[in-house]
């Protein structure tokens, strides 16, 4: 068997080899898909039992640089569930605002990446420039662009000033118009449609059977959004529309995200109007007040995220801490999308699940007839085919 390796571009130690997916191919057709998801495995769940509850927040925040807020939100809610603590209402609203800003930035990020992948470099830069407005707002409110440790057990770390509220409102108005334009573009531009319509097919039945979550599931007609089904933070008082598309392809998944971005902007504005006065945090014991079990499920930008914690009374560390990220849940669905498809469709399908890895990520193509293996990154794959 001969192996050909191609090394391209900047090197992220986790991305060199092995590849995230190994595709067995026959000519241009993908015959089988094997996921390889172990090389960024750091051992976080075990580490969580070796850290106090508060120390653990700084660790979970770094499960994913883009989702960071989603993880701290889920963590504090799970621990509050186990401890039997209720954060103040104002804190719930602030959590919701930052949570939705996180969704907006994350969706804009992947929409930009999708454009870059198909060669729309200008659009990628424009979308990311608008994303900067959101990052500025997050920094203003929480103290940092990412990794701000804003969510704490019992509430949030900072209050928001009237000036910040008015700045946020202005920023939201600015980006609304832009996002509407992006929506029109994704819906109608012939190049975008050519690259994403019909690619990465995932039937509703398969999406449900394989445990798909988030826009990946909602792009296949599965009308489930944790914010509506199991309301958390301020979602019991701030209603939202679940965005669903029936086309079951990459295009549908991107459309879900564009529409969700507009919906998120609306949710933040509504939170700003409805937010009650009051404290933003309550005092919290340093050790678990009871032996218990808690869990929290949220709709992270990529989909359903769950943290599950076991506590023992009097201990300052969790007994067991489990995290299941949305991208992990979507792996079997991605394999399903690509089996029987073309090599050319791989990048468009992978990017459409908004995976928790970058597009300089590598995949391996193994020809079933010759045994020849090529290691190639997604961007090259997209340009070459």
């Amino acid at each position, binding site marked *: 068997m001969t192996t050909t390796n191609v090394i391209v571009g900047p090197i992220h130690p986790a991305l060199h080899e092995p590849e995230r997916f190994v595709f067995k191919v026959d000519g241009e057709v993908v015959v089988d898909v094997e996921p390889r998801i*172990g090389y960024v495995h750091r051992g976080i*769940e075990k580490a969580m039992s070796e850290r106090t509850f508060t120390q653990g927040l700084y660790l979970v925040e770094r499960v994913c640089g883009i989702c960071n807020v989603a993880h701290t939100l889920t963590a504090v809610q799970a621990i509050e569930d186990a401890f039997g603590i209720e954060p103040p209402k104002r804190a719930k609203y602030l959590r919701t605002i930052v949570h939705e800003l996180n969704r907006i930035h994350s969706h804009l990020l992947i929409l930009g990446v999708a454009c870059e992948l198909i060669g729309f470099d200008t659009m990628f830069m424009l979308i990311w420039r608008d994303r900067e407005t959101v990052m500025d707002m997050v920094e203003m409110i929480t103290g940092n662009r990412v990794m701000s440790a804003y969510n704490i057990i019992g509430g949030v770390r900072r209050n928001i000033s009237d000036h910040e509220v008015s700045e946020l409102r202005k920023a939201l108005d600015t980006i609304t118009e832009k996002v509407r334009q992006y929506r029109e573009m994704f819906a109608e531009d012939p190049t975008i449609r050519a690259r994403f319509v019909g690619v990465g097919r995932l039937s509703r039945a398969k999406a*449900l*059977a394989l*445990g798909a979550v988030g826009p990946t599931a909602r792009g296949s007609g599965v009308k489930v959004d944790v914010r509506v089904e199991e309301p958390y933070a301020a979602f019991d008082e701030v209603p939202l529309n679940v965005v669903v598309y029936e086309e079951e392809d990459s295009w549908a998944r991107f459309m879900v995200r564009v529409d969700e971005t507009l919906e998120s902007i609306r949710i933040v504005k509504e939170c700003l109007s409805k937010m009650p006065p009051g404290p933003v945090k309550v005092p919290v014991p340093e050790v678990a007040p009871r032996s218990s079990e808690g869990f929290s499920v949220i709709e992270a930008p990529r989909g359903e995220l769950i943290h*599950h914690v*076991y506590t023992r009374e009097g201990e300052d560390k969790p007994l067991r801490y489990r995290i299941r990220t949305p991208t*992990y849940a979507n792996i*079997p669905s991605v394999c399903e999308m690509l089996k029987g498809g073309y090599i050319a469709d791989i990048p468009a399908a992978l990017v459409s699940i908004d995976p928790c890895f970058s597009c300089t990520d590598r995949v391996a193509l193994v020809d079933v007839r010759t045994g020849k293996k090529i290691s190639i990154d997604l961007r090259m794959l997209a340009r070459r085919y």
Partner: protein
Amino acid sequence: MAEDYVKLIEVLREGLRERFLRYEYDAKRRALKVLVERDALPKAFELINEISRGEYHFTTITGADLGEDDVELTYFLWLIPQKLRVMIKASAPKRDSKVQSLVNVVPATILYEREVYEMLGVRFEGHPRLEKLFLPEDWPENVHPLRRE
């Protein structure tokens, strides 16, 4: 809507009989916890499949070593029409931690079972590919990171 949990309990009780151990319902969260014998798991999920007509979302499996003689398994799912969060719990003794694989009944369990196997040593019988998922290839065979020893 929430009363649907009563219907589900009846169905599980009737189908599992003495292998249905107990349940707890949190009305505020619409969350139902059910404890069953480990060999009742496939049947429990067949019943869930029937009562929901396949309209449920499988969330994940947590395996936990809480310092006792067994590994506690929690299967999380969301019943869509009933709008019910369900946690099916079962225990597998550490010395003989075999559990039947649910991959044929619940395809979404395929990667979660591998994870619980590598982290806690629970063997899922009938799984098409019970091998490591996250741990490196050269990780020693019988060392399971989330076991307390």
